[in-house]
């Protein structure tokens, strides 16, 4: 292009685009600011907002689905089997609770707020709330323990569970011993022809 024309063209364009830009910013001097002055004014979050987790322990059946679904392994759950006499109650969705949950820890500092734990829960007891102001001074205060069992209750439940296990194991051992004794007795006795079995009922097999 003609250098002289380019020279003057540059100057003209420079001035023109500068004034266009200045007009835009001048217009914005009088538009309303979009800032919301937190913390005096807080925005209302939509209902699907995913912030801090909350677990309603009354509904938790200890199925461990949320802990398995978590991609960062921030949920720690421990369960204790309950005895048949214990009545832990039913959840609000109608399922009978069969497990004690002494440990239900969520490390909310590790949580990545993806919501993957919410979907598999059969009783919908773990939810993401809209609370986002929960900073602490100490990292360990961010490990939330949702379990509602006192140490005494945990001890009792553990002892009961252990006792039940021992009884079950003893019963099983006794049954095994009895069967073994019966098998030995049978083997030691002379061969007696066994009467034909009745056609309907199936013969119970000897426990091996």
């Amino acid at each position, binding site marked *: 292009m003609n250098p002289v024309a380019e020279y003057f063209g*540059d100057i003209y*364009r*420079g001035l*023109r*685009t*500068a004034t*266009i*830009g200045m007009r*835009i*910013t001048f217009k*914005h001097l009088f538009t309303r600011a*979009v800032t919301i002055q937190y913390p005096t004014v807080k925005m209302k*979050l*939509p209902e*699907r*907002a*995913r912030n801090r987790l909350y677990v309603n322990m009354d509904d938790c059946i200890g199925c461990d689905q949320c802990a*398995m*679904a978590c*991609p960062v392994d921030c949920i720690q759950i421990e369960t204790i089997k309950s005895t048949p006499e214990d009545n832990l109650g039913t959840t609000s969705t109608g399922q009978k609770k069969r497990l004690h949950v002494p440990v239900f820890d969520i490390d909310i500092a590790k949580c*990545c*707020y*993806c*919501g*993957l734990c919410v*979907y598999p829960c059969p009783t919908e007891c773990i939810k*993401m709330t809209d609370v986002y102001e929960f900073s602490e001074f100490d990292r360990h205060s961010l490990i939330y323990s949702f379990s509602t069992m006192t140490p005494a209750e945990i001890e009792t439940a553990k002892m009961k569970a252990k006792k039940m296990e021992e009884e079950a194991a003893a019963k099983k051992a006794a049954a095994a011993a009895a069967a073994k004794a019966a098998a030995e007795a049978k083997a030691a006795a002379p061969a007696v022809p066994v009467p034909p079995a009745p056609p309907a009922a199936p013969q119970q097999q000897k426990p091996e």
Partner: protein
Amino acid sequence: MTDTLTAAPKTSTGKSLRTEEMIINMGPQHPSTHGVLRLEIVVDGEIVVDVVPHIGYLHRCFEKHCEHMTNYQQVIPYVDRMDYVCAMNNEFAYVVAAERLLKIQVPERVEFIRVIMAELQRIASHLIAVGTYGIDIGAFTPFLYCFRDREKILDLFEMTCGARLLYNYMWIGGLSHDLPPDFVPRAKEFCAYFKPKIKEFNDLLTYNEIFVKRTAMTGVLPADVGLNYACSGPMLRASGVNWDLRRDDPYSVYHKFDWEVAVGKGEMGPVGSCWDRHIVRMKEMEQSVRILEQALSQIPEGDVQSAIPKRIRPNPGEVYARTESPRGELGFYIVSDGTATPYRIKARGPGFVNLSVISEIAKGAMIADLVAIVGSIDIVLGEVDR
């Protein structure tokens, strides 16, 4: 100066310096390297002789983490966090790859919603790119305008899936939530609101003579160099190559919409300059609004969760699927060994590949131009380093 040693100092690539040259570190902490990127620059006065980028400051072992997930759906929050600025596009690429591996066909409503979310996210990502580019050049005001508009998009996302930045929304086989009832009217309102804002932004920054003079002559990427280095996205299109994966390697329902691919034409300088990349991004935003309007008026009814498989256990095999993310070609290469855990997931990040061309295009530029060039490549270190 501390470079006067008895033996000529060497750069990290082994080349030895002449004595007039100076090695400068545009270090990991720098206001305008768009993240933790270290650029080792060899300068002769004010002219750049060589640039060596050092990356890895944001490496988070994402691909290794995926090998320990219990199922394929759990990978999606990790994929979000790769390129945190355009999370929906990352999820889109991953679910397209996984659905190809599992041979799942998703309902059409899901496809339309995915396209809407991807295009909204493309606008949001380009807003960040052009806003921060303005700051690199020295104009502070357009950045604030871009973020004000981006807030509206993030509000739409928060309304739908509950999160503003890292969504976990697109699942293999469907979506996590259906659209809320007032999404479509609000999105249409956003489209109407946004079109004049693009024009205002162009008036304020894009056609400003100082901006044009700063960017239109530097960072010229010839088309053949770009193709040799496997550049993609706006970088390649600005050099005149008419290639867009949404049209040329179609996925989802992009073929149903009427839109144009923005290609750099060299209006203000040589083709492939930084200004061309900028204007390609601005035009892409306009085209995204066009796609959005068409998609919003045509969403079919359906159930977004009907095709989500209960257990994902693909047959052994591998798949590579690529999509057009705002930065270029984002691809996922998934290798499955028949179990529920992926054997290997490799992400082909567009930023990583685009950044490699910087030593070619920055030779002979000045330091101020170097900032402009790095800004025009539009890298996000999250996907460069993964």
